[in-house]
C-alpha cells in the first residue's frame, strides 16, 4: 500500500527528471549542451509542479499518474485522443509543407504513417475484442 502511494506520488516526477536527464545527455552528445540544459530545466519545473500541486489539483493529479476515477480516466482518454489528432495534423501539415518546398517529407511521413498504422491497429484490436 505504502509502495503504491510512494509510486503514485513520486513516480511521474522522477520519470520527468529522468527524461530531462536523457534530453540533456542527448543534446550534449550532439554538441548542444546549452539546449540540453534548457530542456532539463523545463522538465525540472514540470516535475516540481507535479510534486507541488499533485495533491490539490485533480488535473495535476492525473498528470502525476495518481489513481483516477472513471470520470477523470475518461477525460484523460479524450485528452490523449485530442493530442494524437493534433500530432497527426501537424505530421500531415509538415509533410505537405516539405513536399511543396521540394523536400522529401520523409520525417513527417514516418510519423504520419506510424500514427495511421497505430490507429488502424487499435481499431482492429478493439473491434476484435469487443
Amino acid at each position, binding site marked *: 500500500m505504502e509502495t503504491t502511494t510512494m509510486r503514485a506520488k513520486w513516480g511521474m516526477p522522477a520519470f520527468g527528471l529522468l527524461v530531462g536527464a536523457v534530453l540533456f545527455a542527448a543534446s550534449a552528445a550532439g554538441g548542444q549542451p546549452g539546449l540540453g540544459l534548457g530542456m532539463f530545466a523545463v522538465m525540472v519545473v514540470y516535475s516540481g509542479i507535479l510534486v507541488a500541486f499533485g495533491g490539490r489539483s*485533480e488535473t495535476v493529479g492525473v498528470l502525476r499518474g495518481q489513481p483516477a476515477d472513471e470520470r477523470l480516466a475518461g477525460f484523460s482518454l479524450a485528452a490523449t485522443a485530442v493530442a494524437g489528432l493534433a500530432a497527426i495534423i501537424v505530421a500531415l501539415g509538415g509533410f505537405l509543407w516539405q513536399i511543396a518546398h521540394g523536400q522529401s517529407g520523409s520525417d513527417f511521413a514516418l510519423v504520419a504513417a506510424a500514427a495511421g498504422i497505430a490507429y488502424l491497429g487499435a481499431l482492429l484490436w478493439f473491434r476484435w475484442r469487443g
Partner: protein
Amino acid sequence: MQNDVRELRTVLALRQEDLAKAMNVSRQTINAIETGRYLPSLPLAIALARFFRKPVEELFHGDDDDAR
C-alpha cells in the same frame, strides 16, 4: 438525463465527500453527476442505485418524463 442523487443524498444528511468515498470516486465526480454535467458509467449508476436502495431507472430518468 436527470437524476435524484442530490435529493437522496441530502435526505440521508450525507456530504458529497461521504458519498464519493462510498462510491470510490472523487467528490468532484459526485458533484458533476448531481449537476448533470457527467453521466456515470453503468456500474457506477448501479452502485449509486443500490446505495440509495432505488431502481436505476428511478434514480436516473429522462428529461421527458413529465411530458409522457
